[in-house]
């Protein structure tokens, strides 16, 4: 994610020469602004408006104003709370895979010779560039209860096949694991890069002072890695449940019994399976406000707690 701050005025001192200078920037900005307004900002406003209506998306049928009814209905819906809870499970379940394990890997393997590190790096990054649908298809095949490789493997150990995608207690963890599989290499690389960035003189100085390996990790590496770790934590919290969408859609359809439905999938379900624009829009507004508040808090926290070494 690029910085949110406006880059300092780099190129040319502002000059007021004529009216041309005032219009020029807007001329360059028009295509971008137009696109973002038409496809993001206006739809946001429109979603807000539609959330107060009842409508089934057919151009011929009327849009009926229902006030806050959509919101009331949604909050009264057990499905909504289940999806919200599941969203939390997704995020919490992903944190170890997207942050903790990569952090341990990055610290543990930073001593490996550069050549083999490059090979590992190239391999563990592969899941990141594989299309989500392809990943879903392949895992569906690997996890098939009858012929899937994973269950064959389990069978060799004499255990019963696991219904990874159809057991309500297991399915959500399967989806989390697949999402984590997609991310783990990427996170490891981000943290390895940050780890490699630490000035070796700092480590050496601590070693000379008799610091143990663990003390070096705890007192030097972890604090210096904190901003990268916070970045990954923030990404996981904000986007974790969203990354799972394709896998839910392809692999479980939100089931069994809504066990893998998260808030993003619920939105999709409301909007395009039940064709209820009002419900879909109302939950979109709820999601957007919740998401915005969360993002705001996280950005503030990061500003406050990230640790900079220079």
């Amino acid at each position, binding site marked *: 994610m*690029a910085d949110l701050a406006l880059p300092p005025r780099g190129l040319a001192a502002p000059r007021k020469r004529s009216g041309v200078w005032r219009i020029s920037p807007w001329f360059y900005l028009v295509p971008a602004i137009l696109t973002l307004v038409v496809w993001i900002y206006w739809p946001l406003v429109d979603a807000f408006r539609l959330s107060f209506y009842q409508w089934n998306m057919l151009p011929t049928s009327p849009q009926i104003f229902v006030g806050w009814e959509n919101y009331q209905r949604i909050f009264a819906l057990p499905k909504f709370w289940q999806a919200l809870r599941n969203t939390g499970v997704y995020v919490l379940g992903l944190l170890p895979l997207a942050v903790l394990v990569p952090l341990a890997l990055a610290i543990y393997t930073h001593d490996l010779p550069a050549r083999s590190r490059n090979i590992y790096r190239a391999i563990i990054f592969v899941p990141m560039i594989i299309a989500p649908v392809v990943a879903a298809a392949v895992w569906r095949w690997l996890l098939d209860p009858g*012929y899937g490789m994973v269950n064959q493997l389990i069978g060799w150990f004499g255990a019963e096949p696991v219904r990874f995608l159809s057991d309500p207690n297991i399915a959500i963890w399967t989806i989390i694991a697949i999402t984590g599989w997609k991310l783990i290499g990427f996170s490891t690389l981000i943290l390895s890069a940050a780890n490699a960035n630490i000035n070796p003189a700092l480590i050496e100085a601590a070693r000379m002072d008799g610091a143990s390996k663990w003390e070096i990790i705890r007192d030097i590496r972890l604090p210096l890695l904190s901003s990268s770790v916070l970045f990954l934590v923030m990404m996981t919290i904000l986007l974790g449940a969203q990354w799972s969408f394709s896998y839910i859609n392809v692999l479980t359809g939100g089931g069994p019994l809504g066990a893998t439905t998260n808030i993003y999938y619920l939105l999709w379900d409301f909007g395009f399976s039940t064709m209820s624009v009002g419900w879909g829009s109302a939950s979109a507004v709820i999601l957007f406000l919740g998401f915005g508040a969360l993002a705001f808090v996280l950005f503030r926290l990061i500003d406050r707690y990230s640790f900079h070494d220079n």
Partner: protein
Amino acid sequence: MTTDALKSPLAAAPRLRRKAAEGTALNSAAGHLVMVLLSIVCLFPVYWMVATSLRPPNTLFETSLWPSQMSLDNYRYALESIPIVRMLINTLIVSVVTTAIQLFTGLLAAYAFARWRFPFDKLVYTGVALTWLVPFQVVMIPNYLLIAQMGLLDNITALILPNFASALAILLLAQAMRSFPKEVIEAARMDGARSWRVLWEVMTPNLRGTIASLAILIFISTWNEYFWPLLLSRTAENSVIQIGIQMFMTAEGNQWGPLMAASTLASLPVLVIYVVLQRQVIQSFMKSGIR
């Protein structure tokens, strides 16, 4: 999040590390073991996809790591049952056009931010950055309705339209332009070059690296895009390959062989790009974060 450290991870270290090296042979063996295991976990599913796709249908459920016999039957079947070639071409068109347009609008907007100070510039910049935080699921219904109104359902143009501009391209290019030496621009201006020419003849050629890495990123993400096509596709002829893959997974059962063949075909372009430009691909993903 920029992580340029990739290039020189250990450059400064060996001198200092020599002393510690003796005791760490065992440690480093364990490190290798961990990384080899992780590599297997990451790569095996991809390998298994290709391996399965090459098995003849009657040996599909073999568990030998290397297919005992190979055949292209699965590919033949996949190509005959859905218009895969057409879908691949559609995906290619969408990805190339999206990449080109996003780079174009991104360059224009970034140039405006980098070169001029104008009323509300910070507000507009923040407005661009914040779009990154709007989940697509929130705006999908109005977007869908707009496409329907335009009569573009089941038309690949609709897949490109909302991606005419992206916060990612604008922000990354604006950052790159910030570090561009002012003297060059000044010199060009002294020579009487208008701002338009400065952008295309001075800035753009010098931003080749950033543009290339951004192009890789946009191309791969567009190629892999699933959600928006899923909303709009009606017929196989006007779909992208990601939707095609799904056609082999039905409620009645999965046609594993053709499914793996279609998945392999869908992944091939991206994997080829990755094999050829591995370092650049990794760098461009890491520079931009996820998404």
